């Protein structure tokens, strides 16, 4: 939970107000100057962006553009080569140089360390590339169904604990094309208020009604369910065809786990279906890496539909849905991404197969178990050290995603640039991915970070935090020494 002190809220609002005022002033002068210049040949065409639509982009985001979209010249492993860039006109245009600087990577989603070339996976991937080539150039139902795809679907179903699975080439497209295939007009989708954009798009594209419940608030979910079942569809009051409740395993901007056992019990009581999006949690948490069901002790048979992606923990691309045989059969007949989109690239499929085999220990070594233990240890160590330093860190224990609150708009570029200067690549997130006042820096820990890497990262974050003034809580060491002093006096 975010605890925003009043003074910080006031200063943040004041900063944003100042930036908006300056932005509008500059827009005003720009309009005067432009009205004197001759018009270009696009007269009579309405402009692609009306003035106020990209106000935020032009006046606020462009000032700090160099903190985003930083290109790298190596694999997204624990250490990366960030390409240096420069700008001659105050960040309006940014140019690449050919110089790179080696930085510690605290931003990529590389939870189990499969991002770079791996000793077990890469030779097999190259072999499959030579056999099946980079793409099948065909949709899955036509000529894009290879032996690898069938093998991976069975392996994913076995790994997750469901009877069957279907594979799709992109995680975002998985959500936005599966939800319309499951529910349509006359149905109701109840989704968590902090769900990802792909779920929101899928829910809108389906044509069903959408209601939102407060993040992780089970009492509110129950209230919404009772109200909606009793009222029925708006205006006609006919009963809903079906209700699907959509939650995520780990929320990527909060680092929190969802309260899965309670959600399941509420949904069972009211006969609603559950859809669990495990994009960040599959492979990264749980004793054997099977995700949030493993960690919280929920039987996978209780969740109706489990969705996940291969981008984060398995170092590949694509997504999957695991459910009962009837649902998967139905999806194979109707899901548009299965019928119209090019099937997943065969080397990427082989990478996931090899990664899952390593995690399950079926490659003959115990690297998988070591990686899982390493990431758990790393996350807990890093989080506790950050909290001791006085940062405001969100998220639950065992979650490898750690947001550090920044709040003020000026701290966003200062923290990011200071970290880069000291050779740490950190990620900062602001509006529109987060609420306006709650901008944050997000740390993603990987199993390929060693203890020395983490200690160096902590040092740099501490220095950058001092420069930016984001240690909102008192440092714990001082608190303990003060308590000891008190005890001595008494």
């Amino acid at each position, binding site marked *: 939970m975010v605890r925003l002190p009043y003074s910080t809220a006031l200063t943040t609002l004041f900063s944003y107000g100042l930036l908006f005022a300056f932005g509008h002033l500059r827009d005003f002068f720009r309009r005067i100057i432009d009205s004197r210049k001759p018009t270009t040949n696009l007269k009579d065409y309405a402009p692609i962006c009306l003035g106020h639509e990209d106000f935020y982009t032009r006046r606020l985001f462009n000032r700090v553009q160099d903190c985003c979209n930083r290109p790298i010249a190596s694999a997204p492993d624990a250490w990366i080569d960030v390409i240096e860039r420069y700008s001659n006109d105050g960040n309006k245009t940014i140019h690449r140089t050919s110089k790179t600087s080696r930085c510690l990577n605290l931003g990529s989603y590389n939870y189990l360390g499969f991002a770079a070339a791996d000793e077990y996976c890469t030779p097999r991937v190259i072999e499959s590339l030579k056999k099946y080539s980079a793409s099948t150039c065909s949709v899955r139902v036509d000529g894009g169904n290879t032996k690898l795809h069938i093998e991976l679907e069975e392996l994913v179903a076995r790994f997750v604990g469901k009877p069957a699975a279907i594979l799709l080439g992109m995680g975002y497209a998985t959500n936005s094309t599966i939800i319309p295939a499951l529910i349509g007009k006359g149905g109701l989708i109840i989704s968590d208020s902090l769900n990802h*954009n792909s779920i929101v798009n899928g829910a809108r594209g389906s044509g069903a009604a959408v209601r939102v419940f407060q993040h992780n608030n089970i009492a509110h979910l129950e209230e919404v369910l009772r109200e909606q079942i009793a009222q029925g569809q708006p205006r006609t009051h006919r009963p809903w065809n079906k209700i699907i409740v959509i939650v995520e395993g780990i929320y990527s901007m909060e680092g929190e786990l969802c309260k899965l056992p309670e959600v399941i019990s509420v949904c069972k009581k009211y006969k609603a279906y559950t859809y669990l999006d495990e994009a960040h949690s599959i492979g990264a948490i749980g004793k054997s890496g099977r995700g949030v069901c493993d960690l919280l002790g929920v039987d996978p048979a209780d969740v109706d539909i489990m969705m996940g992606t291969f981008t984060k923990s398995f170092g590949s691309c694509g997504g999957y849905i695991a459910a009962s045989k009837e649902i998967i059969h139905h999806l194979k007949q109707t899901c548009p991404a299965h019928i*119209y989109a090019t099937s997943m690239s065969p080397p990427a499929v082989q990478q996931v197969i090899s990664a899952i085999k390593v995690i399950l220990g079926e490659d003959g070594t115990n690297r998988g178990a070591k990686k899982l233990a390493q990431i758990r240890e790393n996350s807990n160590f890093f989080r506790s050290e950050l909290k001791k330093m006085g940062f405001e860190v969100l998220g639950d224990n065992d979650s490898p995603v750690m947001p550090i609150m920044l709040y003020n708009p000026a701290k966003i570029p200062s923290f990011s640039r200071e970290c880069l200067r000291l050779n740490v690549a950190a990620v900062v997130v602001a509006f529109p991915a987060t609420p306006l006042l709650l901008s944050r820096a997000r740390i993603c820990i990987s199993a390929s970070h060693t203890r020395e890497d983490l200690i160096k990262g902590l040092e740099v974050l501490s220095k950058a935090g001092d420069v930016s003034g984001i240690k909102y809580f008192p440092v714990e060491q001082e608190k303990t020494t003060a308590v000891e002093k008190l005890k001595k006096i008494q």
Partner: protein
Amino acid sequence: MDMALPVVNATSAVLARVSAAFNAPLARAVVFGVHIDGHLVVEGLLIAVIVFQLTRKSYKPPKKPLTEKEIDELCDDWKPEPLCPPIKEGARIDTPMLESAAGPHTIVDGKEVVNFASANYLGLIGNEKIIDSCVGSLEKYGVGSCGPRGFYGTIDVHLDCEAKIAKFLGTPDSILYSYGISTIFSVIPAFCKKGDIIVADEGVHWAVQNGLHLSRSTVVYFKHNDMASLASTLEKLTRGNKRAEKIRRYIVVESIYQNSGQIAPLDEIVRLKEKYRFRVILEESHSFGVLGKSGRGLAEHYGVPIEKIDIITAGMGNALATDGGFCTGSVRVVDHQRLSSSGYVFSASLPPYLASAAISAVNYLEENPSILSNLRSNIALLHKELSDTPGLEISSHALSPIVFLKLKKSAGSPTADLDLLETIAERVLKEDSVFIVTSKKSNLDRCKLPIGIRLFVSAGHTESDISTLSKSLKRVSASVLSDYF
């Protein structure tokens, strides 16, 4: 007369008494030096009655919210539908399984077949140079990029690929997406908002329809590839509508329609767009690398300068034998998408080895433009050989690499048609080892164009492959469709 007189007398007496009462000054009623006349009292009483009535609450039937017990009962009674319909008996669920690369010859279910089901137009699957660049990329960067473009997922090969494609097409800049169909359904909502007008062809495929639906704009469809229908729709929308000049207007078309194989007449569309001041969004997935003297697409084919087309999108899963998609246009168009296109911002970036495959593919096309003439001669040969197939007719354009065969006479319903076509495809595969496919539709697709058999011609096919196909197709369709000539 003598009856009326007493009545008249009586009424006049009453009237006199009433007016006397009204006008009689009340002897003792002098308030503040003002004589209170009788009528003032009556008026005062009237006002008091009116004020009294106004202060009364009006009668509303009492509202009874549902009690907790009633809500519990409703929740217990409610029976939801099952999440999916039960499996139908006899539904065809098995897709053929490939055991090698999807080139012109491939191994399906254990035996070697001639492959007409992959959109491998330039024959680049299995190309040595592309595979070498992919291997180098895999060893350097691994498989996935582990992050969206904004958070260290931008690898230098992505930037190189964007620059290469922009240079190849002659546009200022381009932007890469990580999946073919997500390109168009992210681009359309990024530019078209609620209140805008979009005129789209009714034969566009599902991804375009989804993009149009997500954009919440007003969408008007015109008859498939019919320029007269387009002109009249544009005329109707802009005539007399003064406000139409302030809202953004778009025409959405595909260069080669994958639902029918027709080619959009771009010169006519550009003429109409300039007359009525619309912007054009062109979906070039199947024509990039195929049409035009050097493969630069539909604009080169018709000789239209590329600046006249506002937004071009394409998926790279066809001619370039890789995956992902790109969008190109003016600098403003491309820059706007880097922050407001959902499929770009909220999704992981394209795996680096696919981006280097795209760069190698474009390089290969630039160095060997002869593969385009191979492709063209193969298409022409196929048209000639299949022109007299019993029961089937070619309904696609003569230059389209998707050769679309539909039934000359329908069997009555779409399911029956699909059944016949699937039977033909299965028998051709089993008996003559030629792999062909029918066009499949999802039930979410709104396109009403007829289904048929789709043949994807490749530059890697030889003449013997094409003659094998045509002989087999003619034989099987003669036997299956013998009742339908």
